[in-house]
């Protein structure tokens, strides 16, 4: 006896899909059940970063002019003592990269969590209450939305001094606007549906409706956005560190590592190249993961 499974982009809803002129069935490309590769990459970096103090790595800040600019182990002058080579101060590249991942990942995650929490709150309130509250909040949002992040970050960096907190703040202060916009749009759509009206009739107050009814339904969107934005934030943080306005030395940060190696890209390519590859891999992984999440949770978000 044939069973009918409804709902979701994954179900064999061929029956309903065929009926009605609006429906259609498209041969879906084979999509992986679980995004192994991106998750794997992220896991590697997260573990490396988290376990950094416990791995038997050389001190990332230990300078040794004797061993400066040693190439990675697979090149002629390389050695296993420094598998990925050393920089111009003789510091071990592998150790620096591992410690650098702590910084980048932490910056990415913390910033995005802050921005999304605030942005979602604004979006929920604006969408639910509407009217003047909505107007005022949206104007604030739009004004923030197009402000170039780096300008603010640079100013903060020079004002209060570069630090992890400043980077996070500078980015979060602008980033939340993106979430606010999107979540508000979602809330507006949700408000059209009957269940909100029913909750109101049942006597639910604003707070309750927002937390119990609206928020869970925007959760999917949030998850996708958050994942996609982590990559972007990591790149911004790296750009700031590169310009000298991010995480200050001597803490290893991928961006500043690239800046340090800038002058000898041809001779000692690994100093700039390797951190760049690290950034590329991590951001790519987050982007791929975000794409997969979006396809699974909410295909309508394709526009993001």
């Amino acid at each position, binding site marked *: 006896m044939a069973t009918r499974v409804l709902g979701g982009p994954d179900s064999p809803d061929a029956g309903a899909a065929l009926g009605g*002129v*609006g429906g*259609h069935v498209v041969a879906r*490309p084979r999509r992986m059940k679980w995004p192994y590769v991106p998750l794997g990459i992220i896991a590697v970096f997260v573990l490396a970063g988290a376990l950094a103090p416990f791995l038997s790595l050389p001190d990332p800040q230990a300078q040794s002019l004797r061993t400066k600019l040693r190439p990675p182990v697979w090149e002629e002058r390389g050695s296993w003592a420094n598998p990925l080579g050393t920089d111009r101060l003789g510091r071990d590249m592998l150790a620096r990269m591992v410690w650098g991942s702590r910084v980048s990942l932490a910056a990415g995650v913390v910033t995005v969590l802050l921005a999304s929490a605030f942005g979602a709150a604004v979006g929920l309130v604006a969408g639910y209450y509407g009217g003047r509250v909505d107007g005022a909040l949206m*104007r604030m949002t*739009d*004004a923030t*939305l*197009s*402000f*170039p*992040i*780096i*300008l603010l970050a*640079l*100013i*903060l*960096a*020079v*004002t*209060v001094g570069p630090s992890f907190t400043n980077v996070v703040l500078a980015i979060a202060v602008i980033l939340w606007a993106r979430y606010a916009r999107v979540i508000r749009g979602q809330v507006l759509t949700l408000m059209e549906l009957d269940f909100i009206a029913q909750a109101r009739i049942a006597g639910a107050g604003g707070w309750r409706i927002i937390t119990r009814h609206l928020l869970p339904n925007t959760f999917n969107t949030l998850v996708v956005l958050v994942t996609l934005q982590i*990559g*972007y934030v990591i*790149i*911004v943080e*790296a*750009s700031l560190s*590169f*310009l*000298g*306005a991010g995480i200050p030395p001597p803490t290893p940060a991928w*961006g500043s590592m*690239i800046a340090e190696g*800038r002058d000898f*890209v*041809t001779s000692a390519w690994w100093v*700039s*190249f390797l951190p*760049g590859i690290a*950034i*590329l891999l991590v*951001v*790519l992984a987050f*982007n*791929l993961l975000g*794409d997969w999440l979006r396809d699974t949770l909410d295909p309508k978000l*394709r*526009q993001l």
Partner: protein
Amino acid sequence: MLRFVVVRLSQSLVALAILSVVVFILARATGDPLSMVLPMSATEEDYANARAYLGLDRSYLEQYVSFVGRAAIGDFGTSIRARRPVSELIRERLPNSFKLAAFAMGVSVAMAFPLGILAAVKKGTAIDRGAQIVSILGQSLPTFWLAIVLVEFVAGRLQWLPAVGDGTLASYVLPGFTLGWFVVAGMMRLLRSSMLEVLDSEYVKLARVKGVIEPRVVWLHALKNALIPVVTFAGIYFSILVTTAIVVETVFAWPGLGRLAYEGITGRDFPVIQAVVLVTAAIVAVVNLGVDCLYAVIDPRIRVAR
């Protein structure tokens, strides 16, 4: 429509006003610029004189009012470092940034549009997959890293293109490409998914049913609708462009506004900082306004809503 423009314009002015206060405060907070300009041996008296000369000894409110007053007529004061009027510096540098941004935007659109549309039309084929790979790589590569690599290899080793802005068209290529890369990736992706959605719509089906030829269906019926979300994001793309410009201009030693900002900030040159931030914000606001108007032109539904 006119009312719409006026309302948005006044909103932008309000935003700019707020921004000017913020900027004023922050710029003052970058520290005492005099310590960077005066020699180590300067005495208290020298400091006092310099301060009076630069008008830094007046009250903050006075400074703010005079700042706003003069900014309104385009006088942004004198650069503490360069000892030239800031407006002069801006006038020199802004066109360079503008040219580079225009080049980058042009390259982006020229690349993103055909790729995005083709990827949607030929969904599932090699072109589509290739475009998707390009797009996701583009959004995952750090711009400055790409810039360095390009400078080293294309300019340094291969000597194909110049690394530094020297006014020739060739010198636009590397920085322009680097600047536009991120936007290309995002725009192409957006256009592709937007086209896919539109190509699936009922009105496209009806157009085909009516016998409209396929190229016209794609490039007229579908595209005009698909552009709407892209235009919505154009404002954001532009600000990303501005953000990235600071990095790119620094790496490629491009004599533009971004580089001026960087120099101003590291040199604690607050007239410069103030001016650059305000000018940038004004430009961004104008661009956004333009984008909103463009949006209303493309989509008749929102003309009434305003």
